[in-house]
């Protein structure tokens, strides 16, 4: 087998190993001095790039996708109605929801007329894609800020309703609840959007159009979501 032979002419500074190596040594020495100085700063987070983990934690994004939590509304009622949309949307099939009817006298605990009798998220299967959050018509399941998920047994990785609520309380206490998600503006129609080159010029007139579209789109989306939730409820009923 024949192979091309590559020969490159080295410049003199390259040919003599030492010059470039000394340049490199100078560079690493600069870092060394900087970091030694930095490491004598007070506080746990000294070298700017090193986080002293248990004491010193990185600020995580408010929309971080960690362990799930089951949301409550302002009056402390469980938002979930047990429709099972999340379980359907989940690519990893890690959510199990069993719907039950709210018993008399317990109406103050739940938002809807139905409630999740059983709600299990299997964290060993979950891939934290956040599709359940998007699918939920009530905004009841949300991926929270919790990221320390190591457990000793598999059973502990099954996040039950209590665990989900505990996650919620913890996040609420720490003030890490997600800010409400901005609705995504949807294009008014399926028509192709204007040509790219004209994008900048058309920006202004488009604005008005888009605003209208957004409002419409939102209303429609919300309606569609509700309708689907109802449908799912029906289906579950028929199954039950």
């Amino acid at each position, binding site marked *: 087998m024949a192979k091309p032979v590559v020969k490159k002419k080295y410049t003199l500074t390259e040919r003599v190993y030492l010059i470039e*190596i000394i340049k*490199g*040594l100078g*560079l*690493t*020495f600069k*870092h*060394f001095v900087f*970091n*030694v100085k930095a*490491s004598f700063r007070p506080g746990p987070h*000294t*070298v*700017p*790039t*090193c986080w*002293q983990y248990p004491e010193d934690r990185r600020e995580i994004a408010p929309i971080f996708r960690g362990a799930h939590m089951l949301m409550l509304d302002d009056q402390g009622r469980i938002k979930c109605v047990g429709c099972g949309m999340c379980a359907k949307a989940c690519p990893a099939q890690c959510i199990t929801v069993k719907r039950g009817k709210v018993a008399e006298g317990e109406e103050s605990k739940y938002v809807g007329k139905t409630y999740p009798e059983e709600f299990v998220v299997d964290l060993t299967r979950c891939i934290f894609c956040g599709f359940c959050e998007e699918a939920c018509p009530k905004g009841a399941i949300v991926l929270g800020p919790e990221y320390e998920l190591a457990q000793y047994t598999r059973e502990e990785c099954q996040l039950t309703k209590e665990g989900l609520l505990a996650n919620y309380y913890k996040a609420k206490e720490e003030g890490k609840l997600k800010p409400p998600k901005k609705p995504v503006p949807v294009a008014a129609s399926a028509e192709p959007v204007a040509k790219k080159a004209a994008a900048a010029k058309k920006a202004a007139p488009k604005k008005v159009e888009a605003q209208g579209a957004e409002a419409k789109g939102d209303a429609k989306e919300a309606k569609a979501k509700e309708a689907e939730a109802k449908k799912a409820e029906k289906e579950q009923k028929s199954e039950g």
Partner: protein
Amino acid sequence: MNWVIAIIKVVFIWTWCLLWATVMTWAERRGSAMIQDRLGPNRAGPFGLFQPIADGIKLFTKEEFRPKTARKILFNLGPILFAIPAFSAYAVIPFGDKIVIGGKEILLQVADVNIGFLYVLAIGALAVYGIVVGGWGSNNKYSILGGLRSTAQLISYEVPWGLALLAAVFVYGTFDLRQIALEQTGTFLGFLPNWGVFKQPLGFLIFTVAAYAEANRVPFDLPEAESEIVAGYHTEYGGMRLGLYLFGEYVNLYTLSALCVTLYFGAWNLPYIDMSKFLGPISYGIASFVVFWLKVMVFLLSFIWVRWTVPRFRYDQVMRLGWKTLIPLALFNLLITALFIQLTV
């Protein structure tokens, strides 16, 4: 009384070497961390200084694992063969001038032999057996590759190393390391310290490069190139057997640095200042020891510094550098030195 003093000196230098080997492991990790924008081990003790102790405990208490297919005798012998020459090479290198206690003059050197130079060369060459025997005894292809690479590398680089040292011997006219150290006082050409490095700049360069190769350090760390042959000759080792290899390596570094300081950087002599003139006999001994040790530390740290800056050579490039560049250079250096001495003397 002489043998008591000798034993004290031996024990002292052993513990000293071991101590600095352990401190070196700490310095290596912290230093590399600082170079790489990290923090390194900082949990055990102040600045993580107790980390080597924790590592030592870990190595001692680990299971002494031996692969079933390994050759038992050779496998056990390897680390020992590696560690013993590493520790014994230091015997002839002075670590200070002399200390006078109760009218008795004690040389700060374990053994003052007049061929100390040759002793270091000979013992240093023995270390390769430990690597080869360990690599062969492990019965692992990566180990044997590491062992072979190491043999080739050590033998190749001993030639320019020896030639560079030979040129130094020409300059000093003696094999006795203490004598060499004593000669490096005063000034050279009137303004430079009378150190070997100024008389033998090329020799020093060759010596340093070859020393990196002898110590298996980056950029010559082929015998244990992690990404290529896993861990080279000590792939199969664990526990204290591995510990012996690692310790041996650091002790080797210490010896090489001490040798370099002795030959090229005036041993315990400070430039332009003669400490013996204004220090008492005991304090002079201690001061000479401290100066020597500080110089050695600078070299040790430079080993770390270089390691975390440059990439690794390839096997054939190491050989090419050794045989085609360093040996001709060393011969040239030898020739120039000889000519110079012939003309001036």
